[in-house]
């Protein structure tokens, strides 16, 4: 069905289609619209889920852990400080191998209070064992949320998935949305290690170094296997519903001399910048990184690269810039831009490319070439 919706409402619509058994909900700007919309679905009887209005994000993730282990599909949504407050349980969910799906509406971190887009919240959770996908349109927010359940619950993955969408820049933007009849795209929830009183097991007890180390390796093995599962699920989604996605979304990259790499809405904005640059005779392309964990292999041979980071690792550098550098050996022009919702237009992005200094870092509008 073709409609229009915000990014938040698109996530809620996908959750409705996925029919989780339990949803834990706690409000935080700019995510709140997701849990409000789901509450409306549940109250109206359009979604028969147990809706737990928890008293904190720490409890939201703890409730999802209990519910997922108890044998039902689970969902929660958060943002920024909420994600950080649940950090302990974010680790726990992955370690417990639970296929929880969470929408994280990317937002800056205080102080001072700032509710606009930034990726530092999600990147602060990058080493937790969660799969992380970043979307750029309302349609993609819907599609990625639906696929997240299937990827997370795949027997070769059994890890939680975080669907990231930019605060306000996507969460509150209206775009067209085509919802689908999912049919049997999502199989019934099956967790091999679900709690079963007929087969009493102990979950997460004290564990010595040898077993603990092996469990950590099991997470990484699944994270590696997830690459193939993601590709399979995205291929099946394309076959069934006609929209295809990949680990990156590449735009005019084939013959490009310089490629802009960015994530979320800035990654989409970069496509317009590429068209402008091409009009000037600069052979530019853009590569929007969708999956941050597992991090994809990037083919950037013989290209110059401009990386836009909507985040920063203090004392080190842009998180994405350094990930690209470590994966490819290329020293990119690292642009730190859009922190705390700073406006970054396609003209600005075109300027980053025109004025690039490979190997250097710039804080857009604040400090040049440091």
């Amino acid at each position: 069905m073709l409609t229009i919706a915000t990014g938040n409402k698109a996530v809620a619509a996908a959750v409705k289609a996925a029919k989780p058994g339990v949803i834990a909900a706690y409000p935080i700007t700019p995510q709140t619209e997701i849990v409000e919309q789901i509450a409306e679905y549940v109250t109206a009887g359009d979604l028969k889920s147990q809706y737990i209005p928890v008293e904190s994000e720490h409890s939201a993730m703890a409730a999802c852990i209990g519910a997922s282990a108890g044998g039902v599909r689970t969902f929660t949504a958060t943002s920024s400080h909420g994600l950080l407050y649940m950090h302990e349980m974010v680790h726990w969910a992955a370690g417990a191998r639970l296929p929880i799906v969470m929408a994280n509406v990317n937002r800056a971190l205080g102080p001072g209070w700032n509710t606009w887009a930034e990726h530092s919240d999600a990147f602060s959770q990058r080493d937790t064992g969660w799969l992380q996908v970043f979307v750029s349109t309302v349609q993609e927010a819907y599609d990625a949320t639906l696929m997240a359940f299937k990827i997370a619950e795949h027997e070769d993955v059994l890890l939680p998935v975080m669907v990231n969408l930019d605060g306000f820049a996507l969460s509150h933007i209206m775009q067209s949305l085509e919802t689908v009849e999912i049919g049997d795209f999502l199989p019934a929830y099956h967790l091999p290690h679900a709690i079963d009183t007929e087969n009493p097991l102990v979950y997460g007890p004290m564990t010595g170094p040898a077993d603990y180390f092996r469990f950590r390796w099991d997470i990484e093995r699944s994270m590696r296997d997830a690459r193939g599962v993601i590709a399979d699920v995205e291929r099946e989604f394309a076959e069934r519903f006609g929209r295809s996605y990949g680990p990156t979304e590449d735009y005019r990259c084939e013959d490009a001399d310089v490629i802009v790499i960015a994530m979320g809405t800035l990654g989409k904005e970069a496509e317009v910048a590429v068209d402008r640059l091409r009009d000037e005779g600069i052979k530019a392309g853009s590569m929007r990184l969708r999956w941050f964990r597992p991090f994809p292999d990037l083919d950037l041979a013989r290209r110059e690269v401009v990386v836009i980071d909507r985040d920063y690792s203090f004392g080190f550098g842009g998180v994405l810039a350094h990930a690209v550098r470590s994966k490819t050996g290329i020293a990119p022009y690292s642009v730190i831009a859009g922190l705390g919702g700073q406006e970054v237009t396609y003209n600005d992005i075109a300027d980053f490319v025109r004025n690039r200094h490979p190997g250097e870092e710039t804080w857009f509008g604040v400090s040049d070439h440091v």
Partner: protein
Amino acid sequence: MSAIPKEEYLFKCTSACAGCSSSLCLRYVLKAAGPDSVLVVPACCTSVIQGIYPGTAMNVPVYNIAFAAAAACASGLSNALAALGKETNVIVYAGDGGTVDIGIQALSGAFERGTDFLYICYDNEAYGNTGMQRSGATPLGARTTTTPGGKPTAKKDLDRIVEAHNPPYMATACSAYPLDLYKKVKKALSIPGPKFIHILAPCPPGWRYPTEKTVEMGKLAVKTGTWILYEREFGKLTINGPSKAAMKRPAPLEEYINGQGRFKNLSPEIMDEMRQQVEQNIQRLSREEAGVC
């Protein structure tokens, strides 16, 4: 004791300290709950007592969870089981630190939401498995590794905090009275909604008394009126047998205090304050039971 089933859900291979009363209580809790039960355990002595992977002393599913998260995890599990149409008992078994301190927000939230579960706090009045640091449940005057001079403030009144949530059932219990505990768990599990049982669980290494005196220490806590056994069903208070007698004629507080190394060298002033606290507690509960509030 003949009413208590012979089936065991906590085997003899625990890693509990000698004279541990909390593991004794868990044994009776599980006998009352039966096999269609799941235990949710935050960081506490029971995390250790159940044994090290891949071994376990438990014969019901046990879900270990982070310190602050037991009641919230149990909420999710209880709702998942409801979604699946199952009537499995969900029981949190948590220490005092995980209840009165770090876990109290999750506990309060789960009770306010009317979660269908039983929350049991076994209270050894300090952080036990980390080596006896003070918790909010540590009583006035007690020496712990972080209150080497004795705790300067009173024990947090957890029961009045829980009572403020108007749960359909709440009770106190003590490890020295296992049949009373068994009956309370049975009754609690027969009632839908959030239930709460607070067990006083004397701890030989923490309280510094000989291991063979664990049962005696629990009885003295009750006989001196320091710990009062009661139930509150839908708001109505009933004082239980052993405490009825103790509240009329409490044994001298010294009988309980003097046997414990943690109370060594208490000042007369602290001792007086402790006596006053016991007396006030007895009077408050007596008035409530008599309907004179």
